[in-house]
């Protein structure tokens, strides 16, 4: 057992060191699921379930058989994976227990040659919630599911091994969520800057066409927005695309010329 813990610790450390913030979350989880199968005694297949908007989804699976067993549980809205995620406890079951509790799952498991199932909860507290209570409420949940084709696999002592993996996976999920949030914020900032540029350009167009000061031009745009019930950013886009739409206040000959001043 000590050797196993050492191997798993080394594998988790190696995975943690190889993680890149911009690497797709599900790719990393798939690599970790592969490692689980390699390092957990008795494991033949593994999958990772995440609850996305309340609906369970398999985001990584080492083989198609694992995916189909997950899907049976999702359609039943029950099974070791669902129970592990909901109760936040490790759920170990064999084919006989499954036959009593989840006959449809037991049939699917028998078809896949699976004898033992182990599901461990994954939970990631939201780190942008206002307080601890909100963080608990908004956390992501899921499960790491491991399947064995041998009866009696997954001793209780293996819980420590699997806990190393689920802790690391929770870290991956949290990092990915933070990265995604940062990406969205960056995209929103770029959009906001573009919108701001368009409004400023439209303001310049109104200044030049209507002979207004910068403040007056912004007032003119605001009035137009209120009168037409259209957002300033939408009006700005239209004006920038066709400055001629802004009716000139005076004949062209009286508008300022582009001449540079003597000292420029």
């Amino acid at each position, binding site marked *: 057992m000590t050797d196993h813990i050492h191997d798993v610790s080394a594998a988790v450390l190696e995975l943690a060191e190889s993680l890149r913030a911009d690497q797709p979350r599900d790719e990393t989880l798939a690599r970790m699921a592969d490692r689980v199968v390699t390092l957990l005694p008795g494991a033949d297949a593994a999958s990772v379930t995440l609850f996305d908007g309340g609906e369970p989804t398999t985001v990584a699976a080492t083989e198609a058989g694992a995916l189909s067993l997950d899907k049976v549980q999702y359609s039943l809205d029950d099974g070791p994976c669902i129970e592990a995620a909901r109760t936040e406890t490790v759920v170990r079951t064999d084919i006989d227990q499954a036959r009593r509790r989840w006959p449809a799952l037991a049939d699917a498991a028998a078809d896949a040659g699976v004898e033992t199932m182990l599901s461990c909860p994954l939970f990631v507290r939201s780190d942008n919630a206002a307080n601890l209570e909100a963080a608990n409420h908004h956390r992501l949940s899921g499960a790491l599911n491991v399947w064995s084709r041998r009866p009696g696999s997954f001793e209780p002592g293996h819980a420590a091994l699997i806990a190393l993996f689920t802790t690391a996976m929770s870290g991956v999920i949290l990092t990915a969520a933070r990265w995604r949030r940062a990406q969205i914020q960056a995209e929103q900032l770029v959009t906001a*800057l573009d919108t*701001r*540029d*368009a*409004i*400023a*350009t*439209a*303001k*310049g*167009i*109104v*200044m*030049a*066409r209507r*002979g*207004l*000061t*910068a403040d*007056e031009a912004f007032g003119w745009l605001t009035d137009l927005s209120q009168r037409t019930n259209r957002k300033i950013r939408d009006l700005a886009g239209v004006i*920038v695309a066709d*400055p001629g739409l802004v009716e000139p206040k005076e004949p062209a000959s009286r508008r*300022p*010329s*582009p*001449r*540079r*001043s*003597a000292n*420029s």
Partner: protein
Amino acid sequence: MNDFGQWQEQAAHRLLSHLMQRTAASEAVGILQVWHAYPREQARDDLDVTGTPAGREAEARRIIAVVDNAADARADRDAHWDPFER
């Protein structure tokens, strides 16, 4: 204020300054578009004649001031000041 606070304040000032420069440049682009009746992209290129941020900002402020002053002069009948009559 500690060093971290000072750093934050300086960063905020720099950000605000960049935003104001960018807004001025965008306004000037709009004015140039009207003056020359050419597309936004060409107006951007023309504004950047010096190829430096400082030069672009100075040119943008000059262009805005031309329109601002002309508008102010028209608003005040007693001023009789025309920045284009030199």
